Protein backbone atom coordinates (compact mmCIF):
# COMPACT_ATOMS: atom_id res chain seq x y z
CA UNK A 1 0.00 0.00 0.00
CA UNK A 2 1.43 3.44 -0.90
CA UNK A 3 2.61 5.56 2.02
CA UNK A 4 0.88 8.65 0.71
CA UNK A 5 -2.08 9.48 -1.51
CA UNK A 6 -2.49 12.83 -3.27
CA UNK A 7 -5.69 14.05 -4.95
CA UNK A 8 -5.85 17.27 -6.91
CA UNK A 9 -8.78 19.66 -7.20
CA UNK A 10 -9.20 23.30 -8.21
CA UNK A 11 -11.07 26.02 -6.35
CA UNK A 12 -10.94 29.18 -8.46
CA UNK A 13 -7.32 29.80 -9.29
CA UNK A 14 -6.07 27.76 -6.33
CA UNK A 15 -4.96 24.15 -6.65
CA UNK A 16 -5.74 22.11 -3.56
CA UNK A 17 -3.88 18.87 -2.99
CA UNK A 18 -5.62 16.58 -0.51
CA UNK A 19 -2.95 14.38 1.04
CA UNK A 20 -3.46 11.32 3.19
CA UNK A 21 -0.97 8.96 4.80
CA UNK A 22 2.66 9.46 5.78
CA UNK A 23 5.11 11.98 4.38
CA UNK A 24 8.33 10.19 5.24
CA UNK A 25 11.62 9.10 3.72
CA UNK A 26 11.03 7.19 0.50
CA UNK A 27 7.71 7.00 -1.28
CA UNK A 28 5.83 9.65 0.69
CA UNK A 29 8.44 12.37 0.31
CA UNK A 30 8.99 11.46 -3.33
CA UNK A 31 5.27 11.71 -4.16
CA UNK A 32 5.01 15.13 -2.52
CA UNK A 33 8.03 16.32 -4.50
CA UNK A 34 6.63 15.01 -7.80
CA UNK A 35 3.23 16.54 -7.07
CA UNK A 36 4.51 20.03 -6.34
CA UNK A 37 7.04 19.97 -9.18
CA UNK A 38 4.30 18.73 -11.54
CA UNK A 39 2.01 21.61 -10.58
CA UNK A 40 4.79 24.12 -11.15
CA UNK A 41 5.49 22.57 -14.54
CA UNK A 42 1.78 23.07 -15.35
CA UNK A 43 2.09 26.71 -14.37
CA UNK A 44 0.15 26.37 -11.10
CA UNK A 45 1.68 28.60 -8.45
CA UNK A 46 -1.20 28.93 -5.97
CA UNK A 47 -0.93 25.68 -4.09
CA UNK A 48 -2.74 24.66 -0.93
CA UNK A 49 -1.71 21.38 0.71
CA UNK A 50 -4.51 19.86 2.75
CA UNK A 51 -2.76 17.80 5.44
CA UNK A 52 -5.93 16.85 7.30
CA UNK A 53 -5.33 13.13 6.77
CA UNK A 54 -1.56 13.19 7.16
CA UNK A 55 -0.86 11.54 10.47
CA UNK A 56 2.91 11.30 10.27
CA UNK A 57 5.80 13.38 8.96
CA UNK A 58 9.49 12.71 9.62
CA UNK A 59 12.47 14.99 9.00
CA UNK A 60 12.56 13.94 5.36
CA UNK A 61 8.91 14.94 4.95
CA UNK A 62 9.54 18.25 6.71
CA UNK A 63 12.43 18.84 4.32
CA UNK A 64 10.17 18.13 1.38
CA UNK A 65 7.55 20.61 2.60
CA UNK A 66 10.26 23.26 2.92
CA UNK A 67 11.65 22.36 -0.51
CA UNK A 68 8.19 22.72 -2.06
CA UNK A 69 7.61 26.02 -0.29
CA UNK A 70 10.89 27.41 -1.63
CA UNK A 71 10.36 26.06 -5.16
CA UNK A 72 6.90 27.68 -5.37
CA UNK A 73 8.12 30.94 -3.89
CA UNK A 74 10.95 31.04 -6.45
CA UNK A 75 8.24 31.04 -9.12
CA UNK A 76 6.50 33.98 -7.42
CA UNK A 77 3.81 31.66 -6.12
CA UNK A 78 2.59 30.62 -2.70
CA UNK A 79 2.41 27.20 -1.07
CA UNK A 80 0.21 27.17 2.03
CA UNK A 81 -0.94 24.49 4.46
CA UNK A 82 -4.44 23.53 5.55
CA UNK A 83 -5.84 21.37 8.37
CA UNK A 84 -2.82 20.19 10.30
CA UNK A 85 -3.22 17.18 12.55
CA UNK A 86 -1.94 17.61 16.10
CA UNK A 87 1.26 15.68 15.44
CA UNK A 88 2.10 17.70 12.33
CA UNK A 89 1.13 20.93 14.07
CA UNK A 90 3.44 20.14 16.98
CA UNK A 91 6.31 19.20 14.66
CA UNK A 92 6.05 22.46 12.75
CA UNK A 93 5.90 24.32 16.02
CA UNK A 94 9.03 22.81 17.59
CA UNK A 95 10.96 23.18 14.32
CA UNK A 96 9.86 26.85 14.13
CA UNK A 97 8.35 26.28 10.69
CA UNK A 98 5.09 27.74 11.87
CA UNK A 99 6.80 31.07 11.39
CA UNK A 100 7.56 30.15 7.76
CA UNK A 101 4.34 28.59 6.45
CA UNK A 102 0.92 30.18 6.17
CA UNK A 103 -1.30 27.69 7.99
CA UNK A 104 -5.12 27.61 7.85
CA UNK A 105 -7.83 25.63 9.56
CA UNK A 106 -10.60 26.65 7.15
CA UNK A 107 -10.48 25.96 3.41
CA UNK A 108 -12.59 28.94 2.38
CA UNK A 109 -10.37 31.35 4.31
CA UNK A 110 -7.26 29.68 2.91
CA UNK A 111 -8.48 29.99 -0.68
CA UNK A 112 -9.49 33.61 -0.20
CA UNK A 113 -6.03 34.43 1.15
CA UNK A 114 -4.57 33.95 -2.34
CA UNK A 115 -6.77 36.60 -3.95
Amino acid at each position, binding site marked *: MPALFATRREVGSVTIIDLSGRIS*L*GEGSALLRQTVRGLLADGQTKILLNLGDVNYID*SSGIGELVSGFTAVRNRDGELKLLNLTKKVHDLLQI*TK*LFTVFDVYTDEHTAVRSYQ
Partner: protein
Amino acid sequence: MTPEAKHLEVVLDTHVESVNLAEEMCLRVAEAVGFSEEECYRIGMSVREGVINAFHYGNQEKPDKKIHLAVDLTREKMVIHVMDEGRGFRLADVPDPLAEENLLSTSGRGIFLMRAFMDEFNVVAGRTGGAEVIMSKKIPPSGSAPSNGNHGKSSSDATPKQEA
Protein backbone atom coordinates in the same frame (compact mmCIF):
# COMPACT_ATOMS: atom_id res chain seq x y z
CA MET B 1 23.53 -4.78 33.45
CA THR B 2 21.03 -6.10 35.98
CA PRO B 3 19.92 -9.74 35.77
CA GLU B 4 16.61 -8.47 34.32
CA ALA B 5 18.32 -6.51 31.56
CA LYS B 6 17.66 -7.54 27.99
CA HIS B 7 19.71 -6.88 24.89
CA LEU B 8 18.55 -7.02 21.30
CA GLU B 9 20.76 -6.32 18.29
CA VAL B 10 20.20 -6.42 14.55
CA VAL B 11 22.34 -5.56 11.54
CA LEU B 12 20.47 -3.75 8.78
CA ASP B 13 21.30 -3.10 5.16
CA THR B 14 21.91 0.46 4.06
CA HIS B 15 18.52 0.71 2.42
CA VAL B 16 15.45 2.95 2.82
CA GLU B 17 13.39 -0.03 3.98
CA SER B 18 15.72 -0.46 6.97
CA VAL B 19 14.35 2.80 8.36
CA ASN B 20 10.82 1.38 8.55
CA LEU B 21 12.09 -1.96 9.83
CA ALA B 22 14.07 -0.37 12.67
CA GLU B 23 11.15 1.85 13.63
CA GLU B 24 8.75 -1.09 13.65
CA MET B 25 11.08 -3.24 15.73
CA CYS B 26 11.64 -0.60 18.40
CA LEU B 27 7.95 0.30 18.47
CA ARG B 28 7.08 -3.30 19.29
CA VAL B 29 9.58 -3.32 22.14
CA ALA B 30 8.35 0.05 23.43
CA GLU B 31 4.71 -1.07 23.34
CA ALA B 32 5.56 -4.31 25.14
CA VAL B 33 7.42 -2.39 27.82
CA GLY B 34 4.36 -0.21 28.47
CA PHE B 35 5.14 3.17 26.97
CA SER B 36 2.11 5.31 26.13
CA GLU B 37 1.02 5.85 22.54
CA GLU B 38 2.56 9.33 22.55
CA GLU B 39 5.87 8.08 23.95
CA CYS B 40 5.90 5.25 21.42
CA TYR B 41 5.47 7.84 18.67
CA ARG B 42 8.45 9.78 20.02
CA ILE B 43 10.60 6.67 20.35
CA GLY B 44 9.63 5.47 16.87
CA MET B 45 10.37 8.86 15.34
CA SER B 46 13.75 9.02 17.12
CA VAL B 47 14.77 5.56 15.92
CA ARG B 48 13.67 6.51 12.45
CA GLU B 49 15.76 9.68 12.53
CA GLY B 50 18.77 7.82 13.93
CA VAL B 51 18.63 5.24 11.16
CA ILE B 52 18.02 7.89 8.47
CA ASN B 53 21.13 9.63 9.80
CA ALA B 54 23.15 6.40 9.58
CA PHE B 55 21.73 5.59 6.13
CA HIS B 56 22.25 8.99 4.56
CA TYR B 57 25.05 10.82 6.36
CA GLY B 58 26.98 7.96 8.00
CA ASN B 59 26.98 5.27 5.34
CA GLN B 60 26.29 7.76 2.54
CA GLU B 61 23.71 5.32 1.13
CA LYS B 62 26.47 2.86 0.18
CA PRO B 63 24.95 -0.64 0.03
CA ASP B 64 28.17 -2.38 1.13
CA LYS B 65 27.95 -0.70 4.53
CA LYS B 66 25.70 -1.81 7.40
CA ILE B 67 23.59 -0.11 10.04
CA HIS B 68 23.78 -1.64 13.51
CA LEU B 69 20.78 -1.20 15.79
CA ALA B 70 20.82 -2.31 19.41
CA VAL B 71 18.24 -1.99 22.19
CA ASP B 72 19.06 -2.41 25.87
CA LEU B 73 16.22 -2.75 28.32
CA THR B 74 16.83 -2.32 32.00
CA ARG B 75 14.29 -1.86 34.75
CA GLU B 76 14.79 1.89 34.46
CA LYS B 77 15.06 2.71 30.79
CA MET B 78 15.05 1.70 27.16
CA VAL B 79 18.39 2.53 25.56
CA ILE B 80 18.73 2.57 21.77
CA HIS B 81 22.04 2.53 19.91
CA VAL B 82 22.32 3.25 16.18
CA MET B 83 25.77 2.70 14.69
CA ASP B 84 26.97 3.33 11.16
CA GLU B 85 30.15 2.54 9.27
CA GLY B 86 30.89 6.08 8.18
CA ARG B 87 33.46 8.58 9.38
CA GLY B 88 31.66 9.79 12.49
CA PHE B 89 30.74 13.34 13.43
CA ARG B 90 30.76 15.72 16.36
CA LEU B 91 27.51 17.04 17.73
CA ALA B 92 29.09 20.47 18.05
CA ASP B 93 29.50 20.57 14.26
CA VAL B 94 25.78 20.01 13.56
CA PRO B 95 24.09 23.28 12.53
CA ASP B 96 21.17 24.48 14.65
CA PRO B 97 18.02 23.97 12.52
CA LEU B 98 16.23 26.66 14.52
CA ALA B 99 18.73 29.37 13.54
CA GLU B 100 17.15 31.93 11.25
CA GLU B 101 19.57 31.13 8.42
CA ASN B 102 18.75 27.40 8.60
CA LEU B 103 14.95 27.55 8.80
CA LEU B 104 14.57 26.98 5.06
CA SER B 105 17.12 24.20 4.96
CA THR B 106 15.68 21.00 3.49
CA SER B 107 17.68 18.78 5.87
CA GLY B 108 19.37 18.76 9.26
CA ARG B 109 16.41 18.33 11.62
CA GLY B 110 16.92 14.68 12.59
CA ILE B 111 19.35 15.26 15.46
CA PHE B 112 17.12 18.03 16.77
CA LEU B 113 14.06 15.75 16.79
CA MET B 114 15.92 12.94 18.59
CA ARG B 115 17.10 15.38 21.26
CA ALA B 116 13.63 16.78 21.69
CA PHE B 117 11.83 13.44 21.84
CA MET B 118 14.16 11.35 24.02
CA ASP B 119 15.23 11.79 27.66
CA GLU B 120 18.92 11.29 26.95
CA PHE B 121 20.83 11.70 23.71
CA ASN B 122 24.48 11.56 22.75
CA VAL B 123 26.76 10.76 19.82
CA VAL B 124 30.06 8.95 20.37
CA ALA B 125 32.65 7.14 18.25
CA GLY B 126 31.12 3.71 17.62
CA ARG B 127 32.75 0.29 17.63
CA THR B 128 31.73 -0.10 13.98
CA GLY B 129 34.08 2.71 13.00
CA GLY B 130 31.47 5.41 12.46
CA ALA B 131 29.13 7.35 14.70
CA GLU B 132 27.07 5.77 17.45
CA VAL B 133 23.87 7.54 18.40
CA ILE B 134 22.81 6.62 21.93
CA MET B 135 19.40 7.66 23.18
CA SER B 136 17.20 6.54 25.99
CA LYS B 137 13.81 6.97 27.57
CA LYS B 138 12.79 6.23 31.11
CA ILE B 139 10.41 3.31 31.37
CA PRO B 140 7.09 4.27 32.99
CA PRO B 141 6.14 2.50 36.22
CA SER B 142 3.84 -0.47 35.66
CA GLY B 143 0.26 0.59 35.03
CA SER B 144 1.09 4.19 34.21
CA ALA B 145 2.47 5.93 31.18
CA PRO B 146 3.71 9.38 32.03
CA SER B 147 4.87 11.88 29.42
CA ASN B 148 8.42 13.20 29.76
CA GLY B 149 7.21 16.71 29.05
CA ASN B 150 9.87 17.35 26.42
CA HIS B 151 7.36 17.93 23.67
CA GLY B 152 7.43 21.42 22.25
CA LYS B 153 10.74 22.37 23.79
CA SER B 154 13.44 23.99 21.77
CA SER B 155 16.85 22.39 21.30
CA SER B 156 18.29 24.44 24.12
CA ASP B 157 15.50 23.24 26.41
CA ALA B 158 16.12 19.66 25.43
CA THR B 159 19.81 19.62 26.30
CA PRO B 160 20.83 15.98 26.40
CA LYS B 161 22.41 14.38 29.41
CA GLN B 162 25.64 12.52 28.77
CA GLU B 163 25.52 8.77 28.74
CA ALA B 164 27.26 7.12 31.67
